[in-house]
């Protein structure tokens, strides 16, 4: 570990590199390394004839967006199972926790809608019936948005963010698969034929999945910092 460098740069990096969720020792090491880089850059600018204030300004402008940098570093540094004991690992924070929050919020909103006595609209088409619960569907973009925001905040990538926001429909699908499998094994497959599967997919996967996805959309895409190639 470094024993000397300008504290000024260390403080600057520490203040700006947030949130950096890494074990304390790794965090200190990253801060020290970035501070050392800024210190060298500052010295270089001074050698090039810039005044102290100009050099300082140039160094401060080296990183425009600290938050994406912190997230990129966190993603690059992270190794499964190396986080501090007692702390959640990145997968939990980026996928499971936001996903469960989304599922819980979706189920609570459905329960609330039913408790308020709102009846679902039932439509019949081609000998099949399908239901729409508009009030519930209207609440789902918020659930998707919260999950996507939590996932992004924890440094989750595009797919993780998407999976966490669509977690409720994946849970519904998993439940249905278990029921379908159970019914098949028990010999009551007539009750859960192809039409039941299509209806289920429409009612519990496609319909709720769309508003969940719509809510998550603003959080799915984030600027990546890749090396600049100039010509």
């Amino acid at each position: 570990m470094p024993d000397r460098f300008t504290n000024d740069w260390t403080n600057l990096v520490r203040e700006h590199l947030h949130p950096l969720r890494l074990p304390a020792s790794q965090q200190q090491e990253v801060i020290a390394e970035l501070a050392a880089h800024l210190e060298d850059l500052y010295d270089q600018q001074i050698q090039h004839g810039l005044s102290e204030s100009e050099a300082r300004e140039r160094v401060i402008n080296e990183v425009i967006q600290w938050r994406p940098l912190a997230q990129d570093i966190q993603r690059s540094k992270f190794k499964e199972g190396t986080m501090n004991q007692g702390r959640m690992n990145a997968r939990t924070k980026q996928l499971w926790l936001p996903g469960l929050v989304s599922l819980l919020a979706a189920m609570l909103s459905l329960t609330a809608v039913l408790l308020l006595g709102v009846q679902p609209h039932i439509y019949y088409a081609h000998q099949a019936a399908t239901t729409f619960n508009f009030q519930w569907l209207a609440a789902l973009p918020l659930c998707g948005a919260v999950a996507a925001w939590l996932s992004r905040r924890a440094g989750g990538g595009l797919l993780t963010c998407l999976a966490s926001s669509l977690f409720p429909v994946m849970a519904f699908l998993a439940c249905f698969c278990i029921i379908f499998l159970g019914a098949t094994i028990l010999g009551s497959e007539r009750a859960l034929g192809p039409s039941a599967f299509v209806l289920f997919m429409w009612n519990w996967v496609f319909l709720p999945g769309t508003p969940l996805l719509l809510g998550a959309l603003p959080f799915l895409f984030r600027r990546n910092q890749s090396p600049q190639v100039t010509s």
Partner: protein
Amino acid sequence: MTKRIRSKIARGSAELAILALLADQPLYGFEISKQIEEKTGGALCFTLASLYPMLYDLEKRGWIAGRWEANQAGRDRRYYCLTPAGKKELAPLRREWNVFFHALDCLAGVSNA
């Protein structure tokens, strides 16, 4: 899609540049960015934000290893060196890029541009 391809090319070329530099000697972050800029005549530039996530990623993959040492000025810096796994990775990476540039040359006459 074009942006993604460009980003992947930039990332791949940057990885090759870092690994190739470290194959010669251990360097710390600032030296790596400075040498890449100098050796490419400013065509490839690394900012702090683009360099360190990549270094940490390469370190995580086990291709490079970092250790704190004092530089010539007596300041502690984190020097990176190529690991045996990184050396093993560098040769096929060089071949891949050679094939890629050759293909581009055949297709678009890149070397005559």
